[in-house]
């Protein structure tokens, strides 16, 4: 019997063609034929290659962790906001730091003027960590430190703070962003040259594998790469290349893949087409599992899990008609849940132009809670699994991400591609093209280029800057500096320099230094003396 051919393409059906942001053409109809050769028919959640999720029962067992990004002003204010979020049912903390802390400057550095405590919490010494995490049960709440250029110091402070509070660090959980390679592509808080920066990341991986095995020292970020202009395929491909670069570094220290791979996690972006994002995560999860098992020869099941925080992207939000962002973020949350994320965070509706207010942060929290408790997203694993469209797209994403990773190899690998500005150049061109699309209307955006409201009030509530808090932070820093053991401080800083010169792992000497209340700026300057600083290639 002849098979009846279904009309499926845009041409056959006489409708307009549709392309995803990734450039993939979408058919108006998908049928069983489209997944005839797909491996999905034999795949089960919780089993290699984990396309359908890394755990057998996923959210039925435990919903994803809600971890809103917070932290501003002083460590004291940050502690207050943490207590507020925990009281309201948040299960993880995602800590924001101010720019001086992220760039390795103390609060009293002239270059930090006007920035202390502005976009996050300011940290000068271990004392600030002690204040920020006062009365927070680190066994119950997982803490994620959103810091990169100075991540090695922040991780050292977190470990030192936990030890001082009586926690056994061999059981200590938590995450640091600590993905410096993506900082060179977007976000920009690099300090040291690329190779030295990667070396410091590998130091933290090695140290944690040996001493803090439950800690996730790196969260590789596709998020910021996408926000810088990469399409969804590139977002995943570049993140995987970066994760491989750190892994190769760790392997070269003699650590086995199974000793650290399960502690690598990822941070991805969500905005744009719903199905494209879901396929991106499902296809990406399958590919990452294959890379870790087939290329790296991991034996442990959990080594090949793509564990991720997938959050609503700021890039999708608009300053125009800001309340629409609540609706957008609800869809992003749904996408994240349908993609089997481990952790979720949403940008608040006002985050396109300011630091979220307590009110807007609460709406984000409630958005996720409504989804968990009222929408049934936790009832069954991978509810889109088996959809002809989603599965066909998932297969396509796996293939296309793999191809894009080969392009990076042609650029002599990700470290070189970043150091020479190759990736920065390509994503910034795409960001421009996309922005032009929004400005000329070919990329529809509600409230921006369609359904625009004429009488738009541009005035919005803005997070105030607290100069007094900044001055208090400086006073506190000077007080700590005058009360510490000066000789020990000098010895610790010398030890860091010596270890850096001898190419040793810097974690032990940095932990020793923070315990003596050496400042972030002092430690960074000691490292700079040996490593030098990154010279930014100017590309746009």
């Amino acid at each position, binding site marked *: 019997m002849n098979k009846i051919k279904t009309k499926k393409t845009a041409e056959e059906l006489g409708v307009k063609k549709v392309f995803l942001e990734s450039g993939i053409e979408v058919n108006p109809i998908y049928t069983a034929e489209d997944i005839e050769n797909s491996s999905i028919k034999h795949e089960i959640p919780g089993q290699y290659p984990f396309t359908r999720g890394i755990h057998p029962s996923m959210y039925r067992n435990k919903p994803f962790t809600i971890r809103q990004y917070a932290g501003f002003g002083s460590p004291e204010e940050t502690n207050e906001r943490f207590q507020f979020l925990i009281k309201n049912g948040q299960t993880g903390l995602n800590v924001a730091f101010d720019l001086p802390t*992220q760039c390795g400057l103390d609060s009293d550095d002239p270059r930090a003027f006007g920035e202390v405590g502005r976009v996050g919490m300011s940290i000068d010494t271990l004392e600030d960590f002690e204040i920020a995490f006062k009365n927070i049960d680190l066994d119950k709440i997982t803490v994620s430190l959103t810091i990169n250029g100075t991540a090695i110091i922040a991780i050292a402070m977190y470990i030192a703070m936990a030890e001082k509070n009586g926690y056994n660090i061999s059981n200590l959980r938590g995450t640091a962003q600590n993905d410096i390679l993506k900082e060179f592509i977007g976000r*920009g808080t690099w300090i040291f040259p690329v190779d030295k920066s990667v070396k410091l990341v590998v130091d933290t991986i090695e140290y944690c594998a040996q001493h803090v095995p439950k800690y996730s020292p790196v969260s590789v970020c596709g998020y910021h790469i996408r926000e810088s202009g990469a399409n969804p395929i590139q977002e995943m491909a570049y993140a995987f290349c970066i994760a491989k670069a750190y892994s190769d570094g760790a392997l070269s220290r003699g650590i086995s893949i199974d000793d650290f791979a399960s502690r690598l996690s990822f941070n991805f972006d969500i905005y744009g087409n719903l199905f494209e994002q879901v396929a991106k995560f499902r296809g990406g999860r399958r590919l990452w599992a294959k890379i870790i098992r087939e290329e790296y020869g991991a034996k442990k099941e959990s080594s090949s899990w793509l564990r991720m925080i997938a959050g609503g992207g700021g890039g999708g939000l*608009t300053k125009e008609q800001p309340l629409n962002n609540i609706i957008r973020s609800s869809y992003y949350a749904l996408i994240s849940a349908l993609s089997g994320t481990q952790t979720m965070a949403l940008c608040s509706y006002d985050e396109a132009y*300011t630091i979220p207010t307590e009110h807007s942060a609460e709406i984000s929290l409630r958005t996720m809670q409504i989804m968990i408790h009222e929408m049934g997203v936790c009832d069954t694993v991978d509810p889109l699994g088996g959809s002809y469209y989603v599965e066909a797209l998932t297969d396509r994403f796996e293939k296309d991400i793999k191809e894009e990773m080969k392009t990076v190899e042609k650029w002599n690998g990700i470290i070189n591609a970043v150091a020479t500005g190759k990736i920065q150049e390509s994503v910034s061109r795409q*960001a421009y093209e996309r922005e032009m699309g929004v400005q000329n209307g070919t990329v529809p955006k509600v409230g921006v280029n369609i359904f625009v409201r004429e009488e738009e009030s541009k005035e919005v509530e803005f997070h105030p800057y607290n100069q007094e808090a900044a001055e208090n932070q400086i006073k506190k820093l000077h007080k700590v500096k005058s009360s510490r053991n000066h000789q020990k401080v000098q010895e610790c800083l010398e030890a860091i320099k010596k270890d850096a010169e001898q190419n040793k792992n810097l974690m032990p000497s940095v932990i020793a230094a923070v315990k003596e209340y050496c400042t972030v700026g002092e430690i960074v300057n000691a490292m700079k003396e040996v490593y030098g600083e990154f010279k930014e290639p100017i590309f746009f």
Partner: protein
Amino acid sequence: MKVLLSKPGLDGHDVGVKVLAHGLIDAGFEVVYTGLRKTIEEIVDTAITNKADIIGMSILSGTHLVLAKKMNEVMQQKKLSIPWFVGGNIPAKDIEKLKQLGAHNAFPTGSKIADVVNYFNTLKVNV
């Protein structure tokens, strides 16, 4: 006309400034970009060395008033009259304040590239 685009302060958000760089080039301007984390002094020196006709500063961390005040001081010290602009995360109520601090104008996020291009073109007559 030559435009110097710059990133003063510690803010590393450079998507917007790079988008504008592309837009200005496509509109026929010559563009020099400083890269991240420059001091106001460094930016002004770069403008002088490159004989820039216009200086643009991209600021998204909320530090625009602090940095604009500094810019005003440095421009006065050096007795320069290069028109300078601020772009980025600028609340509407701060635009007037920026102008009082000596900024020629400010372009908050959401501004159209065409509007910036048109505005810069009107300066041509005076440069």
